[in-house]
């Protein structure tokens, strides 16, 4: 998580390709520094908001994928652990497995030293039970670590979205305030 002290502006300018929204201390200064008039400033901020939303969609999709992958890996670990446990007793493991949707068949799994792991891309490799367990464990840890980073990215992104939304509201209000002030001045003059 990007850490910021309460008295300074953001010390992080971007995180993994996501630009940080700069916090506006004072709307007047912001507008004069950037040289934009109110409408252009609002348009720029709105566009930034859109870009953030696009990135958010992408990150959410990645998060969903990872969240589906992790239980899968845990299930595989379960199966390998069960096979290892059964190996010790010398009994065969009898299991029902799905042949096709709705159709199950019974299998007897006897003395075995190896399991095959599906690695994706039409590749399946044979491993000993211990190797399989450590490979699956490693994959699980990587997936969990990636998920953590992703969650932190999403939090950072949502913070930038909030900052931008608040800035838009403040610029708009400042404009309304200016218009009212101008109108009342004109009212006094005429």
């Amino acid at each position, binding site marked *: 998580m990007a850490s910021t002290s309460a008295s300074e502006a953001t010390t992080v300018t971007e995180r993994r390709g996501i630009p940080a929204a700069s916090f506006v*201390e004072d709307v007047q200064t912001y507008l004069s520094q950037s040289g934009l008039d109110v409408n252009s400033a609002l348009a720029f901020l709105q566009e930034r908001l859109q870009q953030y939303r696009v990135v958010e969609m992408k990150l959410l999709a990645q998060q969903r994928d990872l969240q589906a992958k992790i239980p899968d890996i845990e299930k595989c670990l379960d199966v390998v652990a069960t096979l290892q446990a059964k190996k010790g007793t010398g009994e065969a493991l009898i299991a029902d497995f799905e042949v096709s949707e709705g159709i199950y068949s019974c299998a007897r799994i006897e003395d075995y030293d190896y399991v095959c792991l599906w690695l994706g891309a039409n590749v399946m490799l044979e491993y000993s039970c211990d190797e399989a367990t450590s490979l699956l464990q490693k994959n699980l840890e990587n997936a969990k670590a990636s998920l953590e980073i992703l969650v932190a990215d999403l939090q950072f992104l949502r913070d930038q979205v*909030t900052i931008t*939304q*608040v800035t838009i509201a403040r610029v708009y209000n400042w404009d309304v305030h200016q218009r009212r002030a101008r109108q009342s001045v004109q009212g006094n003059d005429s």
Partner: protein
Amino acid sequence: MQQAGTSGSDMEVTWEDQQNINKFGRLNNRLHELEDEIKAAKETNDNLEDASNELILTDEEVVRFQIGEVFAHVPKEEVESRIEELKEATSKNLEKLEEEKESVLAQMAELKKVLYGKFKDSINLEED
């Protein structure tokens, strides 16, 4: 989704206020996630309850217990103890989630007090 919308005239927003608003947004998101997770955990708990009830009623010696994608033939006692273990794990998890939810709600209430105190009507922190 809750929007921290400001609609005041000349309210100044300091960096600290912005950070409070950000924190509130993050807590709110976490709250929704927690509610979903709690719902899922409760469902799992109910399913395990139903499963152990069914188990008591059945008079078969060998039960098909799902491990991964296959259903292994497991003796009834082992299934009972496995279900007990799963039930314990799920209720512990549920407790942890409920606790986290309480803490998040408390923090959100605090922030609401601070932000409403400063911005009064200019800010909306309610669920729409």
